[in-house]
């Protein structure tokens, strides 16, 4: 473990919060900022769902609606999910591998500021004369050119996406270097916790695909200044290649680390070693590679890619995903399961993400994709992967690791209410969208004709969205109550299996005074078993 020069502790100043190189502070800042963006983007979603509750225009104009879905999607992907997935890693990976700090700690600090700045720039579009960007989070060309999307707000979108994703890339590089160089003695690669492995797979996707979006945003910005880049013949297809080569892995980046977190919660709350560790690690790496190979399925209807090839790679993803599901179930099988709040969220993740995954197999088939393309079926599918995967996964991680971060437990009763309401809200919001899409309702419309009889299903989805909002309100109450007077957690309230549970709660600046010997991927479980023997 790294021996760091002792630094006397003092009360935090403003500088401690804005310029700290401590991975825990950077991780917390990243996660806190990402959650703030999540609530902002959620508010936009509520506005949209309320508008759609009945046919006819009620709340916003059609132009404003376009801005809402663009900034909602952009914020959820670029400013919430991706930074949150990396932010959890910035906090916990060094703790899990027994490191005192990150390698090149300035990189993630710089990354945080670029991410925050990019987010502020992107949202500043609302303050401009022509409003925020309104071309969808994928900015298809020529919708995003300077003729169809003039104005500063659209330029701010381009700059904001570029800056924020550069920030996430810097965080990923530092994290990967830390995993390579700072593992504790005995911590071989195949003894790293599952969460750390899931971050490795995530960072492979980040370092290979995120530079592409930086290039894409620079080119789009230059194009919008009047230089013909994407307006040349074939340019619109080139834009789609560039964007989806980044954005499809991004969809996996945003939930992959949380697959690892859920796996650890399932093992800990089943009081068993994670089943099929090595195979799961391999499947995570294969999953990441395949997910970097499937961007063309977003382009099936353009006829500019090989549909058969991308259908093959997209369907093949079911194999590693199936292995992970099998490992989750096998870990629980025969375990002495405790249904604590983190486990409830983990089960919610498993169930809701399954809906997203299974519907993904359908849209990986070109004939079916042609049928549902740009309909609400697609909206339902990716919301099950993102809501089920990222949001439920993130709350699994939050409830699991909150005691380590704060030294206090989150309230159990409110936590159960939160989990229950959010699960019910997730079903109520997104299941009707499958039916709406199947009946032909297109995505990204502010209104629909009453003769379609889509009002009831849309109203159900809106009630679901408000249910999710209620669950988040319960979470906020729980969060502040627990921060102010929550039950003390001690070092290891869950009988965790990995090294972070050796550290004090919250961990000191350089994390550990001493580390146990690492003989497997569950060193604390080894210790307990030896003590009992």
């Amino acid at each position, binding site marked *: 473990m*790294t021996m760091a020069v002792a630094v006397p502790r003092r009360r935090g100043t403003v500088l401690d919060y804005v310029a700290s*190189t401590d991975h825990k502070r950077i991780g917390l800042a990243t996660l806190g900022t990402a959650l703030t963006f999540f609530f902002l983007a959620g508010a936009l979603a509520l506005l949209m769902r309320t508008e759609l509750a009945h046919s006819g225009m009620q709340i916003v104009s059609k132009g404003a609606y376009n801005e809402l879905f663009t900034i909602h999607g952009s914020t959820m992907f670029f400013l919430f999910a991706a930074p949150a997935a990396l932010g959890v890693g910035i906090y916990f990976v060094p703790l899990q591998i027994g490191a005192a700090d990150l390698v090149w700690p300035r990189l993630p600090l710089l990354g945080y500021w670029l991410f925050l*700045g990019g987010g502020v720039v992107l949202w500043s579009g609302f303050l401009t004369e022509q409003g925020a960007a309104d071309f969808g989070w994928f900015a298809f060309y020529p919708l995003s050119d300077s003729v169809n999307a003039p104005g500063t707000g659209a330029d701010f979108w381009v*700059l904001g996406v570029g800056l924020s994703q550069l920030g996430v890339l810097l965080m990923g590089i530092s994290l990967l270097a830390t995993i*390579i160089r700072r593992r504790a003695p005995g911590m071989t*690669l195949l003894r790293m916790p599952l969460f750390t492995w899931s971050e490795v797979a995530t960072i492979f996707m980040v370092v290979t695909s995120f530079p592409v979006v930086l290039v894409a945003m620079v080119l789009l910005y230059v194009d919008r200044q009047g230089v013909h880049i994407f307006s040349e013949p074939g340019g619109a297809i080139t834009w789609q*290649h560039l964007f989806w080569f980044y954005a499809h892995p991004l969809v996996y980046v945003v939930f992959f680390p949380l697959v690892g977190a859920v796996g650890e919660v399932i093992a800990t709350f089943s009081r068993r070693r994670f089943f099929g560790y090595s195979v799961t690690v391999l499947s995570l790496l*294969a999953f990441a590679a395949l997910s970097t190979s499937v961007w063309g399925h977003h382009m099936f209807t353009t006829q500019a890619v090989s549909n058969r090839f991308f259908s093959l790679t997209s369907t093949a993803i079911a194999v590693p995903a199936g292995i992970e599901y099998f490992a989750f179930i096998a870990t629980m099988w025969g375990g002495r399961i405790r249904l604590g709040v983190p486990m409830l969220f983990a089960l919610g993740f498993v169930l809701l993400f399954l809906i997203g995954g299974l519907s993904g197999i359908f849209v990986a088939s070109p004939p079916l994709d042609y049928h549902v393309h740009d309909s609400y079926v697609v909206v339902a599918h990716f919301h099950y992967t993102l809501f089920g995967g990222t949001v439920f996964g993130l709350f699994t991680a939050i409830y699991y690791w909150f005691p380590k971060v704060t030294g206090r437990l989150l309230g159990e009763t409110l936590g159960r209410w939160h989990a229950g309401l959010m699960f019910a809200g997730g079903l109520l919001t997104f299941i009707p969208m499958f039916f709406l899409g199947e009946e032909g309702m297109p995505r990204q419309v502010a209104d629909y004709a009453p003769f379609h009889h889509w009002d009831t299903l849309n109203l159900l989805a809106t009630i679901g969205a408000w249910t999710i909002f209620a669950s988040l309100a319960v979470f906020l109450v729980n969060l502040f109550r627990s921060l102010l007077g929550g039950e003390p957690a001690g070092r290891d309230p869950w009988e965790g299996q990995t090294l972070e549970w050796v550290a004090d709660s919250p961990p000191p600046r350089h994390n550990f005074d001493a580390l146990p010997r690492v003989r497997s991927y569950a060193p604390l479980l080894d210790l307990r078993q030896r003590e009992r023997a």
Partner: protein
Amino acid sequence: MSPPWVIAGWGAFMAIVGLVGVLFFDLKGPETPAFFGGVTGVMVVLGLLLRLLRLGVSAPDGPRPSPDLSPATAWLGVSLVLLATGAELGLWLVYIAGGMTTVGVGGLVRELRAERRAAEEEA
């Protein structure tokens, strides 16, 4: 199993998937093979570099004086955001942010030199 092999192996897996596409499918244009080739190249070269420079092994021991704070980094981050925004809002902001960036880089150099001095004193 060491990090260079995992990284290069992941790149090789991408190469296999890409090759399947090139050999058995009509990929309709250069973009798809170019992306597969790019990812393969990046990961294989990264793996090889780590191996050749012997950076692929964990080196957890030894004192590493690192600052608890790096105001210069935070300053640089804000400067870069303003610099990029200046492209939209005008040259006046580019000039201000350019100056700020210079100050930030100077601060970073100062921090790194202090770090090196501390390391030498520790040694």
